[in-house]
């Protein structure tokens, strides 16, 4: 593999700028003549905007403009879109209300913008916002799904009667009914998947700069996918055509899904920049992040699993209500459907599955993809079901899972997904060994003697990553293709630039992508530069989400590399007067196999650019591009086991051990992979124990700062024992599966299963705070 090649834990190239304070995030950028935006947001969950009086603000010194939603409509700026069409089971298309970037008439969640102040400084903009008088007529609000679905409930959008966006299903209902009719045992479970706020540490920000002479916009934005942002801003929002809009996502301080979407603030900044003729900067604060970054999860589900007399699963029936908030965010519709229900087979051979999903509007912040996006919800439901079933059927939870594991691949599930490969027994065995499962009863007894309740909980997750191929996602309603593009430029002196449509916001692409080049060409990674995050530099890209950057983005680079290598070999063969088939690449040299004749890469590159002596008909230069569209999703899978203790007197949980055994296929950089798992695990543990985005009965968010929303902190979580088992992904030449979301997908069920094991299988919802655990113990 070489010290910097594939499989090496190379320290990150990008770290130097971050550890020395030289990272360049959007808010760090200043443009000449820059103005500052401050949004005026609704304090009501549901209200009519009667009037906006900005006269006082407009008269204040330093105020350049106060712009409202009505002006946005007058300028024919488009409404925000949802990019994945879902069809209800009755054949009707999903029912969506319009989402204007600033509300001209009706606000439907606390924090929805109605106007924006543009001023000479941040403070002046904020001061002036206080002087804008908005007259609201409050309307009754529905803060949650049960109240939204009640007969006679207040309606959010006239287009969506009963506040229902869609009522969708997947699977064979008749087959499931038949399976349940013959079942020896049926296990039932009702659970909620708590609403979360994504909380990337860098709040969203945007700087829009309109060039009046060129009629050209530049947008610096906190995006996971700048090309998708440009596409949507051009094609749907009428901001500017693509060739007149450059989108730059520089260093981005975490995303977790929340920075996929194109939000009102970026649109308004662009529009306002043209209106005022100067650059406009908006930087969100943390409360704005809680109010406006798309939230995650928020499901209420009922599930039943049918078993035969031999404890083999014969059927699964699931009914889920998914909260979309007040508007349909960019990919929201796909999350509780194709990213959730298609994973309900888990690691198990289930012959019949039927799932119904109802998408519901409420007067809350829009909900969309958050780390895992649908797959954590599926995994949580299924893994709590397996644990509940093991207890009801009085069998060992590991053995019940093992008995039902899929062992033959490829495996077609009844819910679209065709798993290509895996070895679920291997990851279960690795995790059982790591936690010393055999020794658990003795440890439990010892804890009991000390007055502690000890429990152990399993989670055997599977996820579908890569979010591709384009043809497949298109047939399911996606509005975009989900391939990736790359360009490999070998410069005349032999240094290499890799331009990628993937975006790195913590994932370490500037290192791992170089490792591929080092591996193939034998050049040091210091000779390679990764370029990403700028639509003027990179030809196109679909961005980073769904753990797709290695499986799709890196494979696109590989495809371009192969073209570069093929051309370089031709040049070397010509120069060395050898046959092309005899050229091999070793340690940065193109060698004639079996001889001492060789040309170093810089000499081949120079020959390509001087073009003095190239094969007849060959174009000069050494630069190739590739668009890569995979043949299937990838299917990372693994087993997480959590061992913990509960203090019965206080309900407080303390971790004893947490082990993770993952199968991600080939690892490019194990150090970075493990870092991704650690972070994901803590987001999953955060969901299980701490985090909950809460609204009161009027739709007021009560967790809109870090004072109220419990983020996991260093002393809330343990260190982890990680291990890897490997089945190579057959769907891409690198054999990689993706590792970015696994921890968040698998961890929550392991934690809750461990607590319910400790306290004796009581009903318990997330987040399992000490208060909830104490009540679960004491009734």
């Amino acid at each position: 593999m070489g010290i910097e090649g594939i499989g090496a834990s190379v320290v990150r190239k990008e770290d130097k700028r971050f550890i020395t304070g030289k990272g360049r995030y959007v808010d760090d950028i200043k443009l000449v003549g820059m103005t500052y935006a401050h949004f005026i947001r609704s304090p009501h969950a549901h209200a009519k905007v009667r009037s906006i009086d900005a006269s006082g603000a407009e008269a204040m010194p330093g105020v350049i403009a106060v712009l409202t939603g009505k002006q946005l409509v007058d300028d024919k700026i488009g409404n925000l879109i949802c990019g994945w069409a879902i069809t209800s089971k009755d054949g009707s298309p999903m029912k969506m209300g319009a989402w204007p970037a600033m509300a001209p008439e009706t606000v439907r969640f606390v924090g929805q913008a109605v106007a924006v102040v543009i001023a000479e400084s941040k403070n002046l903009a904020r001061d002036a916002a206080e002087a804008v008088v908005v007259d609201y007529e409050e309307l009754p609000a529905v803060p949650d799904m049960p109240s939204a679905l009640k007969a006679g409930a207040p309606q959010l959008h006239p287009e969506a009667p009963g506040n229902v966006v869609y009522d969708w299903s997947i699977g064979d209902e008749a087959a499931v009914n038949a399976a349940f009719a013959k079942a020896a045992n049926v296990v039932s479970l009702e659970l909620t998947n708590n609403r979360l706020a994504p909380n990337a540490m860098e709040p969203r920000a945007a700087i829009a700069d309109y060039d009046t002479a060129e009629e050209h916009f530049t947008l610096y934005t906190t995006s996971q996918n700048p090309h998708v942002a440009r596409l949507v801003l051009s094609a749907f929002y009428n901001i500017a055509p693509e060739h007149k809009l450059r989108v730059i996502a520089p260093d981005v301080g975490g995303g977790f899904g929340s920075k996929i979407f194109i939000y009102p603030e970026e649109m308004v900044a662009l529009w306002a920049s043209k209106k005022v003729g100067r650059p406009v900067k908006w930087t969100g604060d943390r409360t704005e992040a809680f109010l406006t970054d798309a939230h995650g999860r928020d499901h209420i589900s009922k599930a039943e699993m049918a078993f035969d007399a031999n404890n083999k699963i014969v059927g699964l029936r699931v009914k889920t209500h998914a909260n979309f908030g007040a508007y349909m965010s960019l990919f929201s519709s796909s999350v509780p459907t194709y990213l959730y229900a298609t994973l309900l087979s888990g690691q198990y051979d289930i012959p019949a599955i039927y799932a119904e999903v109802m998408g519901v509007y409420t007067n809350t912040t829009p909900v969309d993809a958050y780390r895992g996006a649908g797959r954590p919800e599926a995994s949580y439901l299924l893994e709590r079901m397996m644990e509940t079933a093991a207890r009801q059927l009085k069998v060992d939870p590991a053995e019940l899972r093992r008995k039902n594991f899929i062992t033959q691949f490829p495996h077609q599930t009844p819910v679209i997904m065709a798993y290509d490969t895996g070895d679920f027994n291997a990851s279960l065995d690795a995790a059982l060994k790591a936690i010393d499962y055999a020794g658990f009863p003795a440890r439990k007894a010892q804890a009991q003697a000390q007055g502690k309740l000890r429990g152990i909980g399993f989670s055997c997750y599977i996820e579908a990553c890569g979010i591709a191929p384009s043809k497949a996602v298109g047939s399911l309603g996606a509005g975009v293709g989900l391939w990736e593009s790359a360009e490999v430029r070998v410069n005349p002196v032999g240094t290499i630039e890799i331009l990628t449509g993937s975006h790195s916001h913590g994932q370490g692409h500037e290192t791992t992508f170089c490792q591929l080049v080092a591996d193939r060409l034998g050049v040091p990674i210091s000779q390679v530069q990764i370029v990403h995050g700028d639509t003027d530099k990179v030809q196109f890209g679909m961005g980073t989400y769904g753990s797709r950057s290695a499986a799709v983005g890196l494979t696109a680079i590989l495809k371009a590399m192969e073209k570069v290598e093929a051309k370089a070999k031709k040049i070397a063969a010509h120069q060395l007067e050898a046959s092309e088939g005899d050229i091999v690449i070793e340690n940065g040299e193109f060698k004639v196999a079996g001889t001492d004749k060789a040309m170093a890469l810089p000499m081949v590159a120079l020959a390509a650019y001087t073009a003095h002596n190239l094969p007849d008909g060959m174009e000069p230069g050494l630069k190739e591009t590739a668009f890569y569209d995979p043949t299937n999703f990838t299917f990372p899978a693994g087993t997480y086991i959590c061992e913990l203790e509960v203090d019965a007197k206080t309900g407080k949980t303390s971790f004893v051990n947490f082990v993770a055994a993952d199968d991600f296929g080939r690892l490019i950089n194990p150090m970075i992979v493990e870092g991704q798992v650690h972070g994901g695990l803590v987001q999953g543990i955060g969901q299980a124990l701490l985090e909950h985005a809460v609204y009161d009965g009027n739709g007021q968010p009560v967790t809109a700062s870090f004072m109220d929303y419990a983020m996991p902190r260093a002393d809330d979580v343990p260190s982890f024992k990680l291990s890897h088992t490997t089945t190579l992904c057959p769907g891409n030449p690198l054999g990689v599966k993706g590792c970015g979301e696994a921890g968040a997908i698998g961890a929550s069920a392991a934690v809750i299963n461990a607590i319910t094991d400790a306290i004796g299988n009581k009903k318990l919802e997330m987040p399992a705070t000490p208060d909830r655990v104490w009540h679960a113990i004491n009734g």
Partner: protein
Amino acid sequence: MSTVKLTVNGKQVAVEVEDRTLLVHLLRDHLNLTGTHVGCDTSQCGACVVHIDGRAVKSCTVLAGQADGSSVTTIEGIAKGDELHPMQAAFRDNHGLQCGYCTPGMIMSAIDIVHRHSAQLDEATVREELEGNICRCTGYHNIVKAVLDAAGRMKLAQAAE
């Protein structure tokens, strides 16, 4: 408006600011020291931690005027030229950062933690002491490793001096 005089990373500066200006904004907006970040506005996340007269302080909770006359060190001021501070090196070597946004505050807090617990720093102490710094990427696992590693390196460096 007031003039605030202070020493930042060893250089004396005098900055004319509105009285309501926070130290973090003086550093970022007036001195272009953008390594110090704002993550929460409620003194919870610690992305803004700097050292004032050698102690770790959340610069979003200090008025610039309160720092008048003091010596402030930011993330930009801890390396000696090209030689990284041992805490910076330990964060890199232990993969203690991902997106990098919380990192400057983490490093500044961590240096202070090591100074205050030089003799007996263990995992539990590091975790407890990092309570005021939030990271969303790393799950803290490698940050804790980095701080413990750096504690050893700082002790060695001190012994060598």
